[in-house]
């Protein structure tokens, strides 16, 4: 299973390297949204810092959505998904591979976004450990749910619009939790022992488990 996962992840990242979607398009997209939000929230610099975790994560989730969409549009063209099935790869492996590549792409975006938030919005980082770990688990959760629903939506002919509808509400708790954890991390109220982080870990693992178990049925549908 791990081997299958590695193959899938490697292939997806190779396609990414070839088509450079992330580099050429996703990062500028992130920058645009960052600026729009900044402008919308307005001139009081105080507020901006306060709500920057929220903005960070809304943007991060939106770009995760794009990454997921892209990941499954790769499989949709020429019905490559049928190919994956025909190869007899383990569904669990396909799932993990997709999660891994999406996770990796999201992390790249988040690092970039983080730099933006720190330098442009002037966000301070106090408990870096908390920020990093909670970000990792939140991303894991989103990537898992996204992969699961991405496969579901990809089977239909309307994935562009079905996917956000499925992914956004089911990741809303993760979004809220990670925002809270980041607020704590910034104000350094609590360190790595933050209960929000615990919640994120639980979410991330549950979503991962659900995906692993049910991905087979989804793929074959």
């Amino acid at each position: 299973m791990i081997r299958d996962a590695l193959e899938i992840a490697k292939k997806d990242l190779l396609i990414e390297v070839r088509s450079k979607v992330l580099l050429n398009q996703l990062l500028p997209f992130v920058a645009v949204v960052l600026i729009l939000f900044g402008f919308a929230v307005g001139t009081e610099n105080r507020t901006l810092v306060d709500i920057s975790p929220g903005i960070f994560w809304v943007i991060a989730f939106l770009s995760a959505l794009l990454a997921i969409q892209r990941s499954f549009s790769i499989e949709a063209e020429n019905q490559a998904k049928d190919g994956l099935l025909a190869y007899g790869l383990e569904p669990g492996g396909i799932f993990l591979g997709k999660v891994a590549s999406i996770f990796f792409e999201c992390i790249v975006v988040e690092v970039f976004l983080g730099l933006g938030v720190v330098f442009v919005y002037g966000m301070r980082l106090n408990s870096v450990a908390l920020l990093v770990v909670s970000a990792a688990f939140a991303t894991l959760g989103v990537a898992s749910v996204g992969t699961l629903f991405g496969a579901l939506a990809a089977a239909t002919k309307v994935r562009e619009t079905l996917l956000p509808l499925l992914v956004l509400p089911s990741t809303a708790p993760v979004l809220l939790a990670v925002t809270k954890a980041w607020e704590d991390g910034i104000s350094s109220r609590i360190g790595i022992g933050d209960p929000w982080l615990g919640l994120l870990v639980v979410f991330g693992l549950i979503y991962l488990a659900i995906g692993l178990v049910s991905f087979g049925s989804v793929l074959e549908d």
Partner: protein
Amino acid sequence: MKNGKFWVGLLAVVALIGVALTYWLGLFVTPPDVIQGQLVRLLYIHPSVAWVAYLAYGVTSVGSILYLWKRTRSLKWDRLAAASAEVGVVFTALTLITGSIWGRPTWHVWWTWDARLTTTALLFLLYLGYLALRKVPAPRDKVAVRASVAGLVAFIDVPIVHQSVVWWKTLHQSATVFNASLSPKVHGEMAWTMLVSFISFTLVYLWMTIKRYQIETNIDEFDNLEVEAAIAERLQEVDELVNSKTSSGTRDADPRDGGSIS
């Protein structure tokens, strides 16, 4: 050709002298401002840099229009648009940087969500997007068409940036130099220094754009050479192929002679 090189060289020299003059006038000749103190010296860089960015994007959109218009369609306009946009992006970045540097002491922040600042940042991104679009691989003429359309649409942001101070009534300095009556509200040696700085940065722009244009031309020429080489190579293969077909007696098979029958 040689002559062209000379003029470009001369342009570089003049531009350099202009910049040096601006530097000297700005730092040593003009007095500090009553309110802003030494900070006012940024006045000799920041507005002219912003102006050059506008100019660059203006040239890009003219190039784009000329490319899109069927009767003047020529890749040279596209190259000009590309070269100018690239220089424009550099100058927009400089505007942002010098503005930030100015903002730190005057507004006590590096960045704020003022309308002009925001629209300038958008401008920067729009043209980054333009450059990214150029990088999407496609045949040369298709790249040119796509880029021209994007370049044209992007330019709409320029008047918005300019007008933003009026429309949103913001923190940022409103038009002191490019106001409707075109009567600068600064006087004396300050005005002179600003004029020198405008001219010399414009010359710098010209020089950079010409250089960049030449590079674009070289790249296109190089591509053409590659194409020629590929064609020549293939022609050779084809000759062999044709010879073998002819000897096997299919029929008269010079591909150049497709029109006749044996």
